[in-house]
């Protein structure tokens, strides 16, 4: 789960990490008031769950409360398109107003899980303020890494090594070490999957300050973090994805027009790949889950039917725990309420496949039944030329 910059900074602040003085506004009037309280000169930052805001016009420095109001008015209620959002952009419902910092130098600092090393790793770099992927590609030697033993935790000497490795001024070694230790504590206590400060700045008056921050949380650990769950902003997510998550369905919206419903993540990806090999593109990733019920299948299928981008549907069910007859009944139930105007191709195999096919055949949905993935892809190709 992602959170906004202002929420991330509030958490950093709880962990003693310095952040700029700031306020959050959801109306232009609030923005003016906050700017006025802060002396007029502020940075206005659009709050969306994506990076690249600066280049997209989502971050602006202003010199007066009136200007802050005008900039906020231009951002609030709009969708901001950055290189990370896709063409549809993300809605700006809040702006963060911050005291501008005089930057002497910018650094990068993050904690992530390294699945190769099977532990959290601290990453730090003198090349701050740019995307770390870019640093990794052009100057990997500028990235310092320190693996954390999960049993004993991050040790003070590791923090010192990183601080010295960043060539920080002598008087900042101790505060930087503390800051790194605190960021790790934040990461561990809240089950983050990413805790990133970029840039971590040294200000003109020689202080460390987190000027931008990103916190992502492990979805699987959210049940034990009620406070973090409350930070969720469903407006930043695709409405169909939000709907799917209510029913325990893994769903990711994609750009194509072939809606697909599959049981199992690996088979779902294989199905998407097969679709793209037949010159079509999937409209989504959808895994109903291994042990889906008839109701979950029906919900999943309704999602596909409600997506106006979907021009044809491919169902691929390998019956195991989820029996094919249960899947078939779910599909029929979903179609009973909505008029189906798109061709449906179904491949069913495994437990109770014959019963499942029988249910679909008797349903007069006009479903095309196929036996293997190749045939499914061929039928999808054919449906494209027909439509």
């Amino acid at each position, binding site marked *: 789960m992602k959170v906004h910059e202002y929420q991330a900074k509030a958490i950093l602040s709880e962990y003693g990490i310095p952040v700029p003085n700031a306020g959050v506004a959801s109306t232009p009037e609030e923005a003016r008031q906050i700017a006025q309280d802060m002396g007029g000169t502020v940075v206005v930052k659009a709050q969306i769950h994506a990076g690249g805001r600066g280049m997209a016009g989502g971050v602006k420095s202003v010199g007066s409360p009136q200007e802050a109001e005008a900039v906020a008015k231009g951002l609030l209620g709009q969708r901001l398109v950055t290189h990370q959002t896709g063409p549809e952009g993300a809605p700006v419902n809040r702006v963060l107003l911050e005291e501008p910092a005089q930057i002497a130098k910018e650094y990068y600092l993050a904690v992530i899980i390294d699945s190769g090393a099977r532990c959290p790793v601290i990453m730090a770099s003198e090349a701050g303020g740019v995307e770390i992927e870019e640093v990794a590609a052009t100057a990997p030697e500028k990235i310092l890494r320190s693996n954390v033993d999960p049993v004993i935790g991050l040790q003070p000497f590791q923090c010192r090594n990183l601080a010295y490795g960043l060539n920080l001024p002598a008087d900042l070694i101790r505060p930087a070490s503390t800051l790194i230790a605190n960021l790790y504590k934040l990461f561990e206590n809240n089950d983050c999957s990413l805790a990133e400060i970029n840039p971590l700045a040294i200000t003109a008056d020689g202080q460390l300050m987190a000027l931008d921050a990103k916190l992502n949380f492990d979805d699987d*650990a959210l049940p034990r973090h009620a406070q973090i769950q409350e930070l969720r902003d469903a407006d930043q997510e695709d409405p169909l994805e939000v709907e799917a998550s209510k029913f325990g369905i893994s769903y990711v919206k994609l750009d194509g027009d072939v809606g697909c419903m599959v049981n199992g993540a690996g*088979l779902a990806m294989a199905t*998407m790949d097969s679709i793209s090999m037949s010159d079509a593109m999937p409209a989504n990733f959808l895994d109903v889950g291994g042990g889906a019920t008839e109701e979950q299948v029906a919900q999943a299928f309704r999602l596909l039917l409600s997506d106006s981008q979907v021009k044809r549907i491919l169902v691929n069910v390998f019956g195991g725990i989820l029996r094919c007859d249960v899947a078939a009944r779910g599909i029929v139930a979903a179609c009973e309420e909505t008029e189906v105007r798109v061709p449906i191709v179904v491949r069913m195999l495994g437990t109770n496949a014959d019963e499942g096919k029988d249910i679909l055949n008797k349903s007069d949905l006009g479903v095309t039944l196929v036996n293997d993935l190749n045939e499914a892809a061929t039928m999808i190709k054919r449906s494209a030329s027909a439509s």
Partner: protein
Amino acid sequence: MSILVNENTRLMVQGLTGREGSFHSLRCIEYGTNLVAGVTPGRGDTMWEEKVPVFNTVKQAVSETEANVALIFVPAAFAADAILESTDAGIPLIACITEGIPVMDMVRVAKYLEDKPTRLIGPNCPGLISPGSSCKIGIMPGNIHAPGRVGVISRSGTLTYEAVNQLTALGIGQSTCVGIGGDPIGGTSFVDMLKLFQEDPETDAVVLIGEIGGTKEQEAADYIRDHFTKPVVGLVVGTTAPPGRRMGHAGAIITGSAAKADEKVKALRAAGVHVAPSPAEIGITMKQALG
């Protein structure tokens, strides 16, 4: 014939009395697995289905039944603890089916397992099966399998069934099929399994099914190139997945170019793996590889 599980397997199920645990344990017994014990704290001294003794602790179960394989159906919040309990009791092989265990829990489990003799399969996996020994430790549909001499290793569940089904349909039986799981941090890796299949005189070839995320396929490719002498058929799914998004499996998220499907395919090809041209052609590619 097989690796890891066989006629000598004595299975203990953690979470036996739960809905999932009960359902799948019955299927395992039907397939021929020797289920000797269940563990559910608070249900000790009872009999499950009037035939399997249930214990409060793994330690008791092991000392009274000599169970040597653990299968875990415990809910995600308690699954890491269940793995640790069986490891502590000295069980040599654990298969954890549970999906959705927090990553930091698995980081700690992985560290604890480092110097222990226990091997963990999963979590978030279908388990493992040796058709020739009629031994099924997991949730895969038993009837699609056939005894034979091809090993299967996969990060996926249903995609493994797809592969097995294609093999069986072409008359190619399996020695052992292992689902190593879809989580970013799990127990056994592709390389661990390849080592066992290399040593198994009754496995002639291996199907390896990978997906986007991490670098496990590249590690497998390195091992295959340098040490593995049997034919390998490979498939990597997720070509069409967008970067930064989780495709169902927590491990299936593209971060960095090495995590992409085409990079993994390239590495496997360079190591001499026969890469199936599409997910529908796993079986036929193996048939050709076997000659």
